């Protein structure tokens, strides 16, 4: 297990330090990209949920009998 971990670590180091460390820049950009996209998707899901809830409340409001509505 330890051996595997160190082997992985070494392989990672080898990739990251090759090409004058260009892959470190790639890693940083990917982290930011993934973080922002993940946040954006979570936000979109929330908005979608709110939209459908909104539509539901709108349709239930229009179904109300006229006598209950505020004049």
């Amino acid at each position: 297990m330890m051996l595997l971990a160190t082997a992985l670590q070494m392989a990672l180091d080898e990739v990251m330090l090759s090409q004058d460390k260009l892959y470190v820049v790639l890693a940083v950009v990917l982290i930011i990209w993934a973080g922002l996209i993940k946040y954006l998707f979570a936000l979109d899901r929330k908005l979608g949920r709110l939209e459908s809830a909104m539509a539901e409340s709108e349709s239930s409001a229009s179904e109300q009998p006229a006598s209950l509505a505020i004049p």
Partner: protein
Amino acid sequence: MTLPREHPVARSFIDTHYRQIRLLIVLWMTAVLLGAFSFGGHWLNIPRISILEHTARNLYFHVPMWFTMMALTVVSAWHSMRCLRSGDAVRDIRARSAAQVAVVFGLLGLLTGSVWAHYTWYEGTSIWWNFDPKQTMATVQVLIYGAYFALRSALDDSAKRARISAVYNVFAFATVPFLLYVLPRQMESLHPGAEGNPAFSEITHPLMRLVFYPAVIGFIGVGWLLYHQRVRARKLEQQLENRQYTPL
């Protein structure tokens, strides 16, 4: 009989031109990315420095995280202050949303800084985390917001929650400058501009600033987009809650 609408007309310039602003920010960021990765005989060919090598380009990505977090922190504290003065619920929504997006940028800054430092400053060691003053600052700021959200969830009444969490937010904001003063005296920093290190302007090639400053503006723009949508989502949520509790 028609039901009254919650939001009649009061739509600001930002609301009506949101899509255009978003397009502008996306194009701007695309240009920044192109500028950041132009090398090998193209324009904006930045000089190589040993140890840093190509990672000097991380300046365009890692550092703006910090700028964006600080900008959102200021926005959050400002809205909290206004919330205390006026008691306006929208101010509370704005303060909370800015804090949420600030945490996202703070975490991204910490993560990217950790990766960058591991392969440059700490190359050949197994260090991923070191208590560098700037790193500690960002961590403390994220922790403060963690406490802020925990405090919010411990308050049930919404008016009380807005007021008391605003007090904490403003109070925490007042103590942050001391951290800036005390930390550099306590631990050594490898960041440029710290004591004994060359200043930012000395080690960055003028060409880099041509990309760096637009990158800062662009990322603050992206932060603003997320913040703006957060605010919108929260406003909608509140509208919905009001409808459920006061049936028409």
